[in-house]
């Protein structure tokens, strides 16, 4: 036996229904599976937020049917404070892990990363398939917490110990529900580690001829950087969840301190460190913020540069900034723990890189705005959502300046100011990135164009709606409105209830607007006009193949890449203002005025 050439194909065509649509090895199908999972998750998470918002606005109101979901948590349809916290925990966990991580990174990345580097698939398609199905299993395990006797956990998505570690005596859901939560996250980590492994190997090893690193589209870099972050972050969260589960089921004391008395009973654990959980969790937790947002930055840059018809002022600066964000994200996690009793000097140490991390974020935003200035931006739904991303990212990011300083954070910590900050900068901004990517790539993924009119209505109503929801959060925070309270009966909080009612109405309205998006998705999938191969006149390789792409992407031929990804605003012999990456054509000059 001698070392021989490997077959050119990574895997063969699917031959059965199961291998084509369920246990598929095709990165595109896996990407769509991730997207569908994220869609189911976001609807679930949004309904949970509606329930919470209704309770916050009208705390004594009965929500019809809620008692069926949880007879103990919502007797007569009126949720208990504990059940409010349980819904909050599930809302946040579902949104952070199964929407914000899954859609922009795993869904779009799976679909487009191999195509954009010119590969037939990822190098380990079986790992890729396992990655999705472990993630799906994690979702099922998490949602199963709704159906155990005490329901889901109430310790929040951060699951601070000792509340999360003690067991069922700590409150409803803190027994089996919390174990399911930790198990779900552990399994989720496995899925994301497998995915990150594939993403990194794809970029390093699967690039086609001519696709040097310098020629990678910005989205590839964003997914690559996110993979590097995911690899190190989820590798830390998984041990944390293992230790948490052991505290629950094996009687260990990793996170439970000595002498803890609960309900007049001494907790039979000793010597654990409650802060240890916070350290492990936030070492993962802060990079997770960037795992959610960096793919959105890549998507937005990709969408804008295509619609501006000219390159960014400095794509290198954007790439270096994204790397800087990834690097610094591991050095700032302590800013989540300013009020945990840490040494003030430690706070200073974490505050400094926290302020530093605003620099690469600002650089990226300034390049976006500077590049947009004077450009003849093509206004379509994708570019509108890209602009919306910038708006949300800036609005949410500005409040980060305040929170980065320990002296101010001591006052604002655990108030709605923080809730407003992270919802805008991480949640809504990332969602706008997902929307932008969806409107941009839907024609490629399905072979049909989406309805632009409905899309633009969807954008404007969502844009206004999200500001109506999350800007008042900042005001509430300044007014001292603490978070994680199920109702506001204190004298100083009562005057704020109308604000909460306004937010609730805005949340229900904005959520209902998303039905337009879902209608557009489904209608366009079946009835939308046929999409050409390159509807946006893009230059990267996904536009060099039919819509939708065949199972083996480039029809069994390796594309050859001649240019970088941003050949816009050029003069060509054909009269087009762009040159595709796989076109040997050379630019005749720069387009006038650019």
């Amino acid at each position, binding site marked *: 036996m001698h070392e021989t*050439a490997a077959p050119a194909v990574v895997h063969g065509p699917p031959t059965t229904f199961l291998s084509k649509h369920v246990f598929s090895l095709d990165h595109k199908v896996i990407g769509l599976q991730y997207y569908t999972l994220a869609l189911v998750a976001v609807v679930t998470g949004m309904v949970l937020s509606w329930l919470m918002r209704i309770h916050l606005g009208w705390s004594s109101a009965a929500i019809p049917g809620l008692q069926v979901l949880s007879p103990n948590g919502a007797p007569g349809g009126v949720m208990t404070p504990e059940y409010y916290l349980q819904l909050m925990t599930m809302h946040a966990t579902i949104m952070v892990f199964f929407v914000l991580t899954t859609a922009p990174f795993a869904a779009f990345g799976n679909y487009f990363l191999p195509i954009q580097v010119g590969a037939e698939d990822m190098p380990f398609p079986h790992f890729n398939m396992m990655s999705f199905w472990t993630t799906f299993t994690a979702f099922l395990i998490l949602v199963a917490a709704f159906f155990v006797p005490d329901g889901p956990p109430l310790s929040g998505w951060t699951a601070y110990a000792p509340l999360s570690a003690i067991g069922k005596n700590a409150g409803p859901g803190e027994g089996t529900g919390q174990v399911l939560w930790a198990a779900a996250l552990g399994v989720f980590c496995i899925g994301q580690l497998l995915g990150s492994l594939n993403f990194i190997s794809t970029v390093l*090893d699967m690039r086609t001829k001519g*696709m040097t690193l310098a020629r990678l589209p910005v989205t590839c870099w964003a997914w690559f950087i996110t993979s590097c972050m995911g690899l190190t972050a989820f590798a*830390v969260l998984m041990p944390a969840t*293992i230790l948490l589960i052991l505290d629950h089921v094996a009687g260990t004391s990793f996170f439970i*301190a000595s002498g803890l008395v609960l309900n007049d009973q001494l907790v039979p654990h000793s*010597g654990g460190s409650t802060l240890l959980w916070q350290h492990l969790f936030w070492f993962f937790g802060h990079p997770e913020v960037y795992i959610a947002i960096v793919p959105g930055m890549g998507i937005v840059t990709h969408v804008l540069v295509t619609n501006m018809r000219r390159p960014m002022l400095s794509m290198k600066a954007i790439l270096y900034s994204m790397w800087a964000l990834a690097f610094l994200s591991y050095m700032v996690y302590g800013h989540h723990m300013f009020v945990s009793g840490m040494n003030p000097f430690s706070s200073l140490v974490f505050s400094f890189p926290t302020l530093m991390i605003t620099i690469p974020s600002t650089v990226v935003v300034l390049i976006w705005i500077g590049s947009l200035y004077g450009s003849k931006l093509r206004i379509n739904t994708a570019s509108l959502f890209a602009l919306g991303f910038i708006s949300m990212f800036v609005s949410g990011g500005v409040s980060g300046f305040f929170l980065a300083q320990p002296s101010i954070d001591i006052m604002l910590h655990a108030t709605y100011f923080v809730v407003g900050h992270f919802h805008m900068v991480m949640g809504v901004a990332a969602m706008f990135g997902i929307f932008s990517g969806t409107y941009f790539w839907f024609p490629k993924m399905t072979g049909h164009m989406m309805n632009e009119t409905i899309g633009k209505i969807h954008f404007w109503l969502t844009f206004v709606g999200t500001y109506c929801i999350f800007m008042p959060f900042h005001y509430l925070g300044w007014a001292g409105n603490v978070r994680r309270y199920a109702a506001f009966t204190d004298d100083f909080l009562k005057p704020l209830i109308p604000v909460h009612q306004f937010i609730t109405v805005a949340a229900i309205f904005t959520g209902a607007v998303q039905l337009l998006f879902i209608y557009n998705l489904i209608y366009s999938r079946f009835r939308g006009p046929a999409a050409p191969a390159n509807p946006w006149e893009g230059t990267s390789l996904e536009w060099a193949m039919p819509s939708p792409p065949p199972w083996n992407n480039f029809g069994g031929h390796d594309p050859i890449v001649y240019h*970088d990804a941003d050949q816009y605003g050029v003069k060509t012999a054909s009269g087009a203002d762009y040159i595709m990456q796989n076109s040997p*054509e050379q630019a005749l000059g720069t387009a006038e005025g650019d």
Partner: protein
Amino acid sequence: MATTLPPPKPELLSLPERRQNGHSGGGQNLVPAGGDLRVTQHYSPPASSSAIWVAIAAICMSFAAFTSALIVRQGSSNDWRHITLPSVLFLSTLLLLASSVTLEVARRRVAAYMGGATADIAPSRLWMYLTLGLGLLFVAGQYAAWLQLRSQGLYLATNPNSSFFYVFTAIHAVHVLGGLAGLLRVIRKLGNASLRRSTLDATAYYWHFMGVLWVYLFLLLWLKI
């Protein structure tokens, strides 16, 4: 406007043909419209060669997290009770290190076979089976260590030291079992002549890493527990 790459350095033009590994790897045999051959630097290894280092990096991060948990936990309380490590661990450490040696011998013999220096595959398989056997003995040794601790009344939840011992050794053993599965896969592929050198190398790197990781854990447990 954006730019294409600058022309390559002259010395790159004489690069040898890339290895036929099934993956293109980027920047290869680039012929622009002008027709001049621009060979940019490009030897891209098979994906498994990169992936194994990525996997090792992730495992390092996990055990770094476990290590930091141990250090923080030790410093946060006064219930840290020293335990004597089971003596069988010294034997299992030797077994794992010996398995790395046998695997390396096997790898060289497979390389000789692939390179055409020998036509006899049997010795390679023998060394691979020997590695597999030593690996299984290592796992058995870890199990014997747990039994030794149990006989002393030290269970998972007895004290933080025993907790960390069981967690560290169990998680490492799970990873070793993954390595054993990899070795079995290599032996199977060796049997049906479908083994790629990169697969063998990746499995070997992983297995050696298991040995290095165990030595680290063993020293950590020895010093801290």
